[in-house]
């Protein structure tokens, strides 16, 4: 077993445990914290896969900014409004579980019934598969500059839209 396998099997434990706890914990605050655990594990996995810059962005943006946003919005709500009785919901949804497990089984069978890489010998050596930040920046700013600019426009629209959405007056006046 090489180092990549050891990293994968060690990191997959916090990732999966975090994801399971996100789905099943009753307190949404715990869900947010377990989501941070899952995100940090994924960031470490990206680092191991040679995507160093993506890993840093994952930690900074997801485990930092997005989760702070979630926790802050949770703090805005009344605790009683947020904490609902979820146990009955989880128990009474056999059909949804059946649907989800059929999906999982089909896709897992599909993945393991065919190998996307012919064998271990076709895998590129580790040193060449590390994507440097310079290479990534060249790809981002020269080859994909149009998508990049469109994303900037999207972020502008989102920033304005979020402010105007959250300023909508409440009350049931229909």
């Amino acid at each position, binding site marked *: *077993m090489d180092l*990549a*396998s050891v990293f*994968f*099997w060690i990191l*997959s434990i916090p*990732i*999966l445990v975090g*994801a*399971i706890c*996100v*789905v099943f914990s009753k307190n*949404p605050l715990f869900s*947010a914290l377990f*989501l941070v655990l*899952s*995100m940090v594990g*994924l960031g470490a996995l*990206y680092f191991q*896969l040679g*995507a160093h810059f*993506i890993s840093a962005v994952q930690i900074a*943006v997801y485990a930092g*900014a*997005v989760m702070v946003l*979630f926790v802050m919005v*949770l703090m805005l709500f*009344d605790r009683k*409004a*947020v904490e*609902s009785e979820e146990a009955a*919901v*989880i128990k009474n949804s056999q059909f*949804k579980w059946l649907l*989800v497990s059929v*999906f999982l089984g089909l896709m897992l069978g599909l*993945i393991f019934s065919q*190998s*996307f*890489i012919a064998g271990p010998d076709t*895998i*590129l050596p580790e040193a*060449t*598969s590390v*994507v440097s930040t310079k*290479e*990534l920046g060249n*790809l981002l700013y020269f080859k994909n500059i149009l*998508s990049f600019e469109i994303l900037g426009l*999207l*972020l502008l629209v*989102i920033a304005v*839209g*979020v402010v105007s*959405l*959250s300023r*909508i007056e*409440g*009350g*049931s006046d229909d």
Partner: protein
Amino acid sequence: MTDLLSFFQVSLNHYLALGLILFTLGLAGVFIRKNLIVILMCLELMLNAVNLIFVAFSHYQGIPLGQVYVFFIMTVAAAEAGVGLAIAISIYKRFGTIKMDLLTALKG
């Protein structure tokens, strides 16, 4: 014994399976949870699973373009979280709760 060792030897399929399990957990969370904030978190989980699959393919096939798409997905995911939380705030202001079984007017 060699079969077991070759199973533990990580290949692209392992990353795909991990991403798929993460995606399915997120999907299950979107289906069964009623809390809007937790539903948004599960959406983030699904997007992260897709990101993992992108990075794994990019690594194993030596094509760095996949990581550029991961950037785009991350940006869109952050924007989606912002809009979703703003919608959650306005739902809370209007109804006083964020349980999703309240909003079934479009069920038909």
